[in-house]
């Protein structure tokens, strides 16, 4: 494997791994806070058990999220030293603020995990909420750093020199808000569906039904509300992409020819040689309308972008289709949930209804990974859009392929371990908590 490809793959692997844990680290504290709140209010021990069971899982996810994040902060330099040398001082602001957010999160987590029966119950509750809030803040900050790579600002690029650096301007670049919003909603939607799905599975198996049913109810509310919001936020993101990265939008849509009244292309197999998309559904004028709110607007196609500045079309297009497809699916499931909640209470005990959620367990996370593929692959060949090429940023050290194999092995075994750990956690629920309830 070529060193450059190896470096890109290793970065993608590490981020793709970290994002799962960080989403859970951001969102689960809120689920726990709700269960914890009900426990403090109603003194129903099932809620306490849910909080405790979740908090053990979260402790495992946290540790894994923290180490994979630590690895990332080194990897930026290990793999992309020339990028960091120039970008560090410009996009470093969110990272330095993030340090504080992480720290608060780690401290609050210490209070929360070890503070049972030790502090005033409401102080203890608040520390749990602080974990969640600082998690969200760190997520927003790191995405602000990433959005700078898509929409660089806060400096002047003159003859290869980075002048007049303004870290605040860099942080609040033209893409940060759209990306941070979309990412935060995604974290809730993905985690909500995943947690609800696991509990739905346990209800189907008739294990500790009361426990799992109450847990399901908490998780799915978050998942369903955000799944309905997400396509709207995605629409805002797409309009933003059209402005700042027309090449990325063209690749997402497999939109080869610049034209007015552009069709929206759904699915299909893009062929870069013939510049055709085979087997696709085309809705005439829809792309123009969705990006510019005008059916007659002209949408820039790949033909306007020099060949050497074009991102890989197929990957970007497929990833975008996967994300949007799953997004629409999740919205549909969320609508069914609200129908059940308001009109069809009996659905909640129906196996088909629970199975729907059980099958939907991974889809939010698949959408998250697909979305990041769109963002990152769609930016290629640039590491900083229009300023620095990814190929110029890579480390001069040879043999990165071995490092990639090594990290692949490490992350694979870690994933297996975490899944195994969770499996044991869930399997033990009856043994650990049966005494006081059921």
């Amino acid at each position, binding site marked *: 494997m070529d060193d450059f490809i190896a470096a890109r793959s290793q970065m993608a692997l590490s981020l793709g791994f970290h994002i799962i844990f960080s989403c859970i680290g951001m969102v689960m504290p809120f689920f726990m806070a709700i269960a914890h709140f009900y426990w403090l209010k109603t003194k129903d021990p099932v809620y306490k058990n849910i909080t405790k069971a979740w908090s053990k899982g979260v402790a*495992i996810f946290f*540790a894994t999220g923290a180490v994979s994040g630590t690895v990332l*902060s080194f990897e930026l330099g290990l793999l992309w*030293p020339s990028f960091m040398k120039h970008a560090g001082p*410009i996009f470093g602001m969110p990272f*330095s603020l993030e340090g504080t957010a992480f720290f608060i999160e*780690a*401290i609050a987590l*210490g209070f929360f995990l070890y503070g049972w029966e030790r502090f005033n119950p409401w102080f203890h509750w608040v520390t749990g909420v602080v974990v969640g809030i600082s998690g969200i803040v760190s997520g927003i900050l790191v995405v602000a750093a990433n959005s700078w790579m898509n929409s660089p600002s806060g400096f002047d690029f003159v003859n290869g020199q980075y002048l007049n650096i303004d870290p605040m301007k860099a942080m609040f670049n033209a893409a940060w808000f759209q990306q941070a919003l979309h990412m935060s909603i995604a974290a809730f939607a993905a985690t909500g569906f995943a947690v609800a799905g696991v509990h739905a599975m346990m209800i189907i198996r008739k294990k500790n039904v009361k426990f799992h049913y109450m847990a399901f109810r908490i998780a799915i509310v978050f998942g369903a509300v955000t799944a309905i919001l997400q396509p709207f936020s995605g629409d805002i993101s797409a309009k933003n992409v059209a402005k700042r990265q027309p090449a990325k939008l063209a690749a997402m849509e497999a939109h080869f020819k610049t034209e007015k009244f552009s069709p929206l292309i759904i699915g299909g197999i893009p062929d870069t040689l013939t510049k055709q998309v085979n087997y696709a559904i085309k809705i005439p004028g829809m792309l123009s309308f969705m990006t510019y709110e005008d059916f007659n607007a002209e949408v820039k196609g790949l033909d306007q972008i020099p060949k050497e500045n074009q991102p890989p079309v197929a990957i970007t297009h497929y990833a975008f289709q996967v994300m949007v497809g799953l997004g629409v699916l999740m919205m549909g499931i969320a609508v069914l949930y609200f129908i059940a909640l308001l009109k069809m209470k009996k659905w909640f005990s129906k196996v088909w209804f629970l199975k729907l959620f059980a099958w939907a367990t991974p889809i939010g996370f698949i959408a998250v990974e697909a979305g990041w593929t769109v963002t990152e692959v769609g930016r290629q060949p640039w590491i900083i859009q229009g300023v620095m090429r990814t190929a110029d940023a890579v480390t001069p050290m040879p043999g990165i392929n071995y490092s990639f194999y090594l990290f692949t092995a490490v992350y694979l075994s870690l994933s297996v371990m975490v899944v195994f750990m969770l499996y044991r956690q869930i*399997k033990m629920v009856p043994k650990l908590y049966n005494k006081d309830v059921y």
Partner: protein
Amino acid sequence: MMLYVVIIYLWAALLLYLLLGGADFGAGIIELFTTEDNKARTRRISYQAIGPVWEANHMWLIIAIVILFVGFPGIYATMSVHLHIPLVIMLLGIIARGTAFAFRNYDAVTDNFQKVYNKIFVYSSFITPLFLGIIAGSAVSGRIDPHANTFLSAYVFSWLNWFSVSIGLFTASLCGFIAAIFLIGEAKHDEIERKRYVRKAVQMNVAAVISGGLVFVSAISDGIPLVQWVFGNAVGITAVSAATISLIILWYLIYNGRSKSLRLLAGFQITMILLTTTYKHYPNIVILKNGGYLSLLENKGTDKTIEALALALLIGSVFILPALVYLIYSFQKKGNKQAV
């Protein structure tokens, strides 16, 4: 002005990582060198002591690295390129340790897997500070060669040399020493337990003296002016003397059955050691083969960046420090009888 704020934070983050993260690594090192039947007890005590602060202890490394890449990107980039291999090994250590710690404490079932986590935990507790020391040693060893043209000279001999390895061993022994002192304090109500940790402290102290000696010997044979860095200036001499005196006081207190102030004294020693080793070649934190060096004062980001970074650090501390102090205080004072 703001530049000095940033540099002080960088130094303080390194010191705190060495002290707090170090105690944490050291607990694992002690477990590694403990007989089988005492391992479980050490594990329990160290878990009780470390559990609540464990995530926070490792944040200091993140703070240091962020300061480095935001404030001093040239230094971060050079180290990342030429010390790639030891950095990767250290990261593997961090991954293994962090996850093994979580797995062994939160696994719902207790069976033979525990043995696996424990093994991983203790070995990575040793390897991580070893390589941390190797990285620090290599930075000042004058072996990093930006113009090297073979793989070995560019990426391997930059860190694989006696001096760097001795510093690594010295760092690991210091971690073990801090942890032993810390655990003596934790075990103050249990005479047998306390004696065990006193013995560990003796062993770790001996290991530190031996590896410290090795550092000097290898420095002399590698032509690194360590003696001059340490003894060639008033600050160095004062710090070394202060460290030695405090070590004598420390042992006096331990053998008289006292548990108070031990931690403060040990912390003071580590501070003095870091001060001596960094003071004289400051502001150059990377020394290159061709005699060049990377200075903190020259390889910095623009003024605006440094200002923003300093502000972020200052504002951050307003939130972090009180919360951290309260966390440590509440779990120290009330003891940590039960966890999740």
